[in-house]
């Protein structure tokens, strides 16, 4: 059979093959890794700073427990609370995306996004590779301080959960990474419509901080009614994406969510990942179309 792809100039291009896309992606990942390693010093400082807010939270809750005679608040003992905060820190290490939305909107503003219009490469795939590299380097640097803190605080934790819970926990963490990534990437692509997205990012951060479980466990809101019979604030938040970027995996590890509820919530989390991935793709398509029409 004649080679349909050949031209009169011998083509310099190897045939694609089904794994060509994957190979591009892994090369991107490798190069992003190298680039991140240039900044390892910055990472070490950043990692250590992360522990500071936790310390103040622990002090705050210690004061709260000292002031009350109760052994637990909304099902959390003092030990549970400390364990909870340490675990949300782990979730945030997966789901937080420092600089992602800002970086995307900046690349639109300063025009460096053009490169991804001219080259046969997918911007979202590139961003994902870059972010995974970012995270991997972060974990390499952060594993020691994290392990140290968890060792020191080991007495606060309940016994290690069963295998099913551990699998669900790991799955919820991976999904929280993807969810955080696609939410913030979509946010950054608003830069195609608005010149400056930092105030939008700030508003998002606020909502995220309140509803993700960063400040307190979401199930503490289970008794607060919304006005609709039988529906609490926590029930509403469950159907939003935010709690899956901090609260949910921590609650899974602590055994607060189990059985059918666990399966349902994992499905909600996975559903949000799909929704945000699609939203991100649409934002990119429409955004680049707008960019092409209005300026570039």
């Amino acid at each position, binding site marked *: 059979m004649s080679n349909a792809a050949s031209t*009169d100039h011998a083509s*310099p291009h190897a045939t694609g093959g089904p794994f060509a896309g994957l*190979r*591009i992606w892994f090369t991107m990942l490798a*190069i992003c890794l190298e680039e991140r390693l*240039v900044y390892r010093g910055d990472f070490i400082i950043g990692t250590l700073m992360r522990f500071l807010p936790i310390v103040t939270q622990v002090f705050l809750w210690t004061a709260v427990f000292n002031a009350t005679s109760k052994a637990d608040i909304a099902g959390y003992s003092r030990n549970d609370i400390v364990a909870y905060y340490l675990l949300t820190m782990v979730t945030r290490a997966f789901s937080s995306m420092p600089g992602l939305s800002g970086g995307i909107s900046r690349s639109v503003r300063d025009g460096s996004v053009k490169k991804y219009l001219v080259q046969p490469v997918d911007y979202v795939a590139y961003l994902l590779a870059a972010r995974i590299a970012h995270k991997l380097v972060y974990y390499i640097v952060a594993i020691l301080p994290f392990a140290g803190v968890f060792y020191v605080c080991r007495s606060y934790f309940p016994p290690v959960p069963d295998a099913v819970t551990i699998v669900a926990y790991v799955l919820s963490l991976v999904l929280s990474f993807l969810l955080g990534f696609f939410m913030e990437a979509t946010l950054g692509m608003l830069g195609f419509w608005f010149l400056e997205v930092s105030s939008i990012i700030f508003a998002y951060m606020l909502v995220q901080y309140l509803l993700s479980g960063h400040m307190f466990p979401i199930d503490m809101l289970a008794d607060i009614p919304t006005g609709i019979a039988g529906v609490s604030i926590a029930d509403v938040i469950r159907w939003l994406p935010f709690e899956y970027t901090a609260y949910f995996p921590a609650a899974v590890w602590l055994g607060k969510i189990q059985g059918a509820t666990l399966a349902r919530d994992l499905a909600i989390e996975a559903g949000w990942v799909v929704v945000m991935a699609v939203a991100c793709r649409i934002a990119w398509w429409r955004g680049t179309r707008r960019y092409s029409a209005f*300026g*570039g």
Partner: protein
Amino acid sequence: MHNSNRGGPVDTDGAAVITVDSLAKEYRVYDKPEGLLASVTGLFHRTNRLVEALRGVSLTVGRGEFVALLGPNGAGKTTFLKLLSGIITPSRGTARVLGHVPWERTDDFRRRFALVMGQRNQLWWDLPAAESFRLHKEIYRIEPARFDRTRDELVDLLGVRKLMLQPVRELSLGERMKLELVAALLHEPEVLFLDEPTIGLDVVAQHTIHGFLKAVQAERRVTVVLTTHYMKDVAALCERVVVITHGSILHDGPLGEIVDRFTTHKIVTLDLDATPAPGQMERFGFPCEIRGPRVTLRIDRTRIADVLPEILRSESVRDVSVEDVPLEEIVATLFRAGAAAPMAEATA
């Protein structure tokens, strides 16, 4: 089996690689009046206006041509290159590059051309260029053996083999530009768009890049379209010059033709024995500039054969040279002519 019907875009030698027909691009810009009060009212009511960056440009470029786009700032040169590389969509008109509509941005098209914008880098800032090259190898799906060969050839042509292992941020502007060019050519594009490739570079670097582009173009029959403000680039590289002012093509033809068409004078420089007396040179009736014993006259091209012998007879001349008006000056005249043209249209 004979492979005449390739199914893909047809681009045999000599045929057009780029065809552009009545291509136009308008931008809507917001007028922001000066002052705080105006800024506040601007929050509620904005006046916008259409800017015509390109007003119906048509041209055809054949395989292996080297075309320079000249024009003052804001003439529409970069808009034109952005349209041809598919970054922006036109308001009206059509364009085909290698048989593709550029702004459809198919991967097949994007593997066959390259765009280098002078001040934008496609190289990774913190890594050696060799790493960016490796990424290009994957993105453009270049065969490993071919990649090595092409890369070695290109870096040797530019003399930057050692530099490709150094982080890009440590390199000078000229060195970076050379490596950008290598990155752009690794996938052996058939069409190359260059937006002010020599901007800010010293003479030596400019010269190296000229030599490089010439060699690459000759060897690979790459079709090159370049925008520049440097007449040296044009003189060294381009047989064909397209002058764009106010979004329209003012002139399209060989460089020599511009000189013929738009110059009325020759520059005659005389070295006299002594500084001429006042009125001594002026009496020939041509604009002249006197610096000590050196006199520069602008003489009508049609009259030079009559006038020059007369001057040589009547003055004691040590040395004489006759030159064309510098290209810069011709182009400046052209730009001014272009600036006047739209007004003429408007009143017509």
